[in-house]
């Protein structure tokens, strides 16, 4: 693809802290290379702000290679911007043209309060994991991988569910701010592996109970989450979560 430079107008959500009201502020950046990543463009803008003595824009990022799930940005009305199955750090400036205006907002959900600017607090996800997104085993030497045969189909499905990076795009994009895709990925992953069996029932009941406590909305099956998930987590996992919940709910003595 041909390389080009562009000048852009950016409208970025600035918010001091969780208590204050935020607003969109307008910035200009010049000579942005089409080869840059979206976050590199933000680095350029932030250096510009620092040189001018202004407060740089706070945003989350870590790996910058699409695996940590930190880079939460709602760009031009879509979680992680215009490309599908993609994180913000892997969005490149060739997605935009010279003269474009780009609007960048934080994830918006009652369960993800804004910390500052584009940074949000996703610890509600951590608490859901703490409620059941684990297996209890004795640590020690790794056991031989072949001592525990797993059906190929189950291994593949569990692996696809395990691809979830906990980014929260599913919540950010859902009209209802529902966390069902995230929770379903974790439940579906462990429910299909032998290691997940001992805690199978309590896991799904406890994780859903924690999800409900965290102010996420209720799923209405719009499937927007699947369309915007950077890892292409399928809504068939949500159907599996519903099945797991029903059968655990029917047999539980909790």
């Amino acid at each position, binding site marked *: 693809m041909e390389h080009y430079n562009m000048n852009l107008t950016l409208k970025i959500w600035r918010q001091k802290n969780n208590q204050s009201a935020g607003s969109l502020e307008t910035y200009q950046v010049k000579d942005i290379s089409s080869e840059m990543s979206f976050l590199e463009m933000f680095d350029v803008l932030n250096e510009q702000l620092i040189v001018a003595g202004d407060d740089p824009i706070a945003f989350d990022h870590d790996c910058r290679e699409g695996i940590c799930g930190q880079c939460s940005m709602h760009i031009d009305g879509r979680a992680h911007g215009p490309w599908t199955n993609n994180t913000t750090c892997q969005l490149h400036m060739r997605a935009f043209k010279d003269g474009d205006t780009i609007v960048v907002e934080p994830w918006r959900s009652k369960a993800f309060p804004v910390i500052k600017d584009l940074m949000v607090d996703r610890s509600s996800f951590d608490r859901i994991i703490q409620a059941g997104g684990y297996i209890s085993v004795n640590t020690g030497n790794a056991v031989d991988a072949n001592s525990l045969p797993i059906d190929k189909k189950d291994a593949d499905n569990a692996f696809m569910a395990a691809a979830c990076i906990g980014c929260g795009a599913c919540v950010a994009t859902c009209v209802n701010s529902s966390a069902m895709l995230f929770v379903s990925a974790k439940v579906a992953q462990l429910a299909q592996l032998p290691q997940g069996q001992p805690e199978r029932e309590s896991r799904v009941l406890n994780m859903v109970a924690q999800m409900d406590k965290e102010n996420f909305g*209720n799923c209405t099956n719009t499937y927007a989450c699947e369309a915007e998930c950077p890892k292409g987590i399928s809504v068939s996992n949500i*159907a599996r979560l519903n099945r797991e919940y029903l059968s655990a709910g029917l047999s539980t003595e909790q």
Partner: protein
Amino acid sequence: MTWKLFFTSSIGKKFIMALTGIFLITFLIVHCGINAMIFFNDGGETFNHWGHFMGSNLIVRTMELGLFLFLIMHIVQGLTLWSQNNKSRPVKYVVKNSAANSTWYSRSMGLLGTLILIFLVLHLYHFWTPSRFGGMAGIKALDETSLATYNNEEVHNLYAEMKLVFENNLLIVVVYILGVISLCWHLLHGFQSAFQTFGVNHKRYTPIIKGAGVVYSVVICLLFALMPLAFYLHWVN
């Protein structure tokens, strides 16, 4: 499923929506099938016969109680979900391109349901109340036509009532058609959504369920929409 989980957890509430929704979908098949008998254009003979059967059969009348219970559960739970979901995002996005990832009607189930509810109140007032309680003050004119004699048995003449409500009343016809259109969009999403809620999501069967949902929604709603039109345009007399 403990009762507490069924009524208070997010997934339990969804099960109620799906269970009651599927029940309503089944009811609509029967309702639409019987009403479609007006198209025989026999002065309502067949239609009134079956209408009378539905109104007098003990099993059907018992199921009617269940229908009301389920409808109320669907409405109460639907409105509760809608209001909870609205509160889950107190600060809205300035720019939101929802069309990129979902259909507008899947995001508007609460709104469409409320439109159906408004229509339903009018609809029950027109047909259900007079057929069960022998007319209401506001629609006195029905009295003269409310009884017809069939096989030496007096039956409620719902056909004449439909004629009266729709024949010279463009506004009512339009309101009914709008109500049915809302129902159509609600079902286009709701039919397949109910299966997903019950955990049915399968490579082979889900496309069939989705196809059946579209056929069901369009056929049922088209037939319902044609009924007021048929009286208004004198296709049936």
